[in-house]
Structure formats: structure tokens, C-alpha cells
């Protein structure tokens, strides 16, 4: 690579910082707004100088819990998302492995079906699915928010293509030692497949943590509703207090940001994988 002149480098950095501000300012407004006294949020929202709160206070954070069951929403979201991620990892990795590495009659036809199902988005089936779960009497439960999302065609496909390229030698050595498919999968294959487990876990987590349409359609009580519905309800709850709303937002995003910071490489790799495999 030819070395860039100092001026070019400086220009690139200026562009990067300018763009970076566009992405950061809305987040900073939320953060600083959450620390301000409610009456000051709207007055100062019109200027960048207002980003630094004059007398920061944590009052808004206390308010949130007294006005809505924030902890309940958080527990619900955590419970629903982690159930889907964990059971999904097990169910979809087993299927992906059977499609990629085991020989059985009917395999190719079923694999074709699974790949075809990838193009049906939730939105295309949300209305009849909600009718279906109403008939089953599942409305307003955790179950209805978990069970439909455990098996996932795209996750199966990601596992399938990963296991297809998995080195055969490891499995063969285990087979000679007399291990069956179950033991081979759990003690040889799975421990060596961390990248694909991480990718699927992160992609599932991102979709489910932000899930809004489905819980809106099938739940109505706060006892089972997740955070996205919580903030939507809080935002329309009079009196309109922006400081409280932002405090809710910060508390809602902090767990995700901590995960993101800790596993950043995996997040970015996971998203990039969707492009390569698609």
C-alpha cells in the first residue's frame, strides 16, 4: 500500500469523527437525559451543549421502578430470550449435524424443505400463528413467546454448513474407539464448534431481545411482557416524562451493551457470517 499523505489521513479522521458523532449523539442524549431533572430534558434537547447535565441525579432511575414494573419486564425478557437461545442451540445444532454428517433415508428431501422454509419470515405467518396459539389457549404466557422460535431454519442451515466443513478425522478416531453418534456429537464435535454456536447464539439473541411484533400480538399482561413492549407502554404513559423514559432506555440497553463489549469480535463475525452463507 502506498503511504497516504498527512493531509489525506487527517481528512479521513475528520470524516470518521463526524460520522461517529452521528451514531453516538442519539445514544449520548439518552444517557444524559436520563440523568437530568425531567423539566430540563426538553429544554436542553435542542442543543449539543445540553448533553452535559448540570446537576446529574439518579432520581429518574428510581422513578421508573415506581411507575412501571421494570424488573418484571427485565426478568421476562431475560427468561424468554435465554430459553430460546439455549434450547435453540441444542435443537438446531443436532438437526444441522444430522443433515451434514449422518446417513439416513429421506435426508436430502428434508434438507431441501428446511432450506426452502428459510424464506418465510415471521411477519408472513404472524396472523395465522397468533390465531393458532389462541385456539391452543396459549395466549399471554411465556410458552407462546418461546416455543415458536426454538426451531429455526436459518440456524439449522448455519450449523449444517459449518459441520459440512468439519474435519472428518476427529469423528473417525472416536468411532474407532467405539463411540456412537450421540457421544461423538457431544464430546467431540460440539466442543470443537464454538464459532458456529457463538454466531447462532448472538444472532438469535439480537432478534429475540428486540422482539416487538409477536409479543404485542399474543400477550396483554405485564406479568409476561418483555422490555420492548415495556418501553412502548411507558412512553405513552402520562405524564410524559422524558427523563424517566431515557432512564428506562438506558437500563434496557446496558445489559446488551455489556455483552456486546465483551463479545464484540463474535458479534461482528456473526453478522458477517450471514452474508457469506447467504
Amino acid at each position, binding site marked *: 500500500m502506498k503511504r497516504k499523505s498527512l493531509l489525506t489521513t487527517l481528512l*479521513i479522521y475528520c*470524516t*470518521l469523527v463526524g*460520522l*461517529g458523532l*452521528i*451514531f453516538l*449523539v*442519539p*445514544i449520548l*442524549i439518552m444517557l444524559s437525559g436520563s440523568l437530568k431533572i425531567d423539566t430540563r430534558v*426538553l*429544554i436542553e*434537547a*435542542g*442543543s449539543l451543549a445540553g448533553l452535559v447535565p448540570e446537576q446529574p441525579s439518579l432520581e429518574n432511575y428510581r422513578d421508573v421502578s415506581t411507575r412501571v414494573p421494570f424488573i418484571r419486564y427485565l426478568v421476562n425478557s431475560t427468561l424468554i430470550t435465554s430459553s430460546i437461545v439455549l434450547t435453540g442451540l441444542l*435443537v438446531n445444532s*443436532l*438437526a444441522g449435524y*444430522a*443433515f451434514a454428517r*449422518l*446417513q*439416513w433415508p429421506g435426508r436430502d428431501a*428434508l434438507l431441501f424443505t*428446511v432450506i426452502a422454509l428459510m424464506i*418465510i*419470515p415471521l*411477519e*408472513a*405467518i404472524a*396472523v*395465522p400463528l*397468533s*390465531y*393458532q396459539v389462541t385456539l391452543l389457549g396459549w395466549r399471554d404466557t411465556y410458552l407462546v413467546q418461546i416455543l*415458536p422460535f*426454538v*426451531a429455526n431454519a436459518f440456524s439449522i442451515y448455519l450449523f449444517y454448513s459449518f459441520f459440512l466443513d468439519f474435519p472428518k478425522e476427529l469423528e473417525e478416531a472416536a468411532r474407532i474407539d467405539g463411540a456412537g*453418534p450421540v457421544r461423538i456429537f457431544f464430546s467431540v464435535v460440539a466442543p470443537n464448534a464454538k464459532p458456529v454456536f457463538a454466531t447462532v447464539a448472538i444472532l438469535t439473541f*439480537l432478534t429475540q431481545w*428486540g422482539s*416487538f*411484533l409477536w409479543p404485542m*400480538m399474543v400477550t396483554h399482561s405485564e406479568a409476561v411482557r418483555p*422490555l*420492548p*413492549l415495556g*418501553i*412502548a407502554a411507558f*412512553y405513552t404513559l402520562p405524564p410524559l416524562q422524558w427523563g424517566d*423514559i431515557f432512564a428506562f432506555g438506558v437500563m*434496557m*440497553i446496558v445489559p*446488551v451493551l455489556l455483552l*456486546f463489549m465483551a463479545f464484540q469480535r463474535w458479534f461482528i463475525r456473526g*453478522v*458477517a457470517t450471514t*452474508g457469506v452463507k*447467504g
Partner: protein
Amino acid sequence: MADQLHKHEHLIARLFVLPALIGLLGFVLLPFALAVTLSLTNLRLGSPLPLEFLGVEQYRRIFTDYTFLRALRNTMLFALIIVPLQTGLALSLALLINQPLRGIVVFRTVFFMPVVFPLSLVSVVWVLLFAPGSAGLLNSLLEIVSFGAWQPKDFLHDTAWALPAITLTSVWQGVGFQMVILLAALQSIPEELYQAARIDGANRRQQFVFITLPQLRNALIFVVLVTTILAFRLFDQVQIMTQGGPQYATTTIMYEAVNAAFASQQVAKGAAMTVVFFVLVLLLTLLQRFLLRQERAVA
């Protein structure tokens, strides 16, 4: 003995796929078949009328319904604006980030960060940014950069500005996703191609047009497809920021489908709308497959 071993393995393999298959059958294939079937009936929750087969009547109704046609138009318009905008922006960001500069990873993190924000939260925050008058950051900024010439607008209650406002919100949240996909594609282009081009005397622009763009072709097709499908799914932002208004300026296919099925309990009508939604997604996917196959035939 060997035969029995095979039978045993077949059984295990079937047990491995069984839970996933039950899930996909019960929660994807069945509701999908139900969507098509219900859309041909008059199903309406709580209605005293008996269930009847109506043929394509629901489709005739929605395609003559002003609100649904408006939703269809808004959804297409939204896709038409956001797809080139977001793809172009994602490509520019990926090219910027792909440079060997100190601290570049920090910027990659910053550009990607909004992707982990739920759309519901993003929508709520942007409602304040779009606030009318001097309380809104966007109005104040535009007033400053135009030296006071900008007339403050109530973006989300203005028929001309509401959809562009939702578009901006969506780009801000989503562009990092496409950027990361394109960045990975950029980094997989072999450096030798550029070296060869430089030996032939190609300048930077020529290198971009004759190497980078053709090498990114598949990734770009993929990004365009994903962005289009995401655009067609538009719902969360509309539900929170505008409720389809003002005067139907931001209503979308999904917003109308959910409204039909829940606000007015017309399950059949809602199902017909989601079938239309699916046909559009299917056509786009087939188009992408076609474009990709075409390239393989050439290569």
C-alpha cells in the same frame, strides 16, 4: 450385524432432527398453510356468521381498499428510498473502515453499535430528536446550519416528512449491519488483484470500478436483498412513532395486517395481507437467486 448398526444410526439421526422438524412443521409450515387457507374465508373473531369459503374475495377487497393500497405504496416507497441509501452508506462506511489506520477499530465499533439497540428503544429516542420547534435536536441543527433559514417542522405529524423521518431512524439503527457484511467481503478480495492492476497503471478510481465493485457483486446483491426484505417488514418504528399517520402517510403492509387482525378481529383479511407480503418477499428472493446464478454461468 452391520445392517443393524445402520438401522441404529438411522434411528439416532431421525431423533436428532425430530425436535427441529416438529418445531418447523408446527410453527412455520402449518401457520403458512393456514395463512393461505384463512385468506380464502370470511373468518372474523367473535362474528356470529358461519365460516364460509369466499375464494379470492378478501384479495379483491384489500386491493380495492384505499388504506391497504396506501400501505402497499408506502412500503414500496420506503424500500425504494432506504435500499440504495442504506446500501450506499454501508459501502462507504465499509470502505472507510477498511483502511489501515490507527484506532480504526474504535470507529467500526461506534458505527455498528446501534445494531444491538432494539428498534422499539431507537424509535422512542428518535421521537425526541424529531420533536417540533426548538426542543428537537434536528430542528435546531438545521436552523444553525441554514443560518436561521430553516422553518422548524413537526416531522412526525407532517405528511411529507413522517416517512423520511422513519427512514432516517431505520438507517441509523441498521446501517452497521450491512457495513459489517460488506467489510468482510472487502477483506476477502485478494490483494494480488490490486497489485496487478497497479502494475498495469490503474488509478484508484479504476481499481474501485474494475476490481472492488465486481468482487463485491455477490455481497452487494445479498445486502440489497436483505435490506429490501427488512424494509418490507417495517412495523416497530411505525407502531411507536406515528401509528401509521398522519393521514395514512406512514402505514405499511404489516401495520395494516396487524390492525386488521387485532383492532378489528378480521383474521381472514389480515391473513390475505400477509400472503401478499410473502409473495413480494418470494419474488425478491427468486430475483436474487436468478442474478447470482447468472453470474456463475458467466464466470
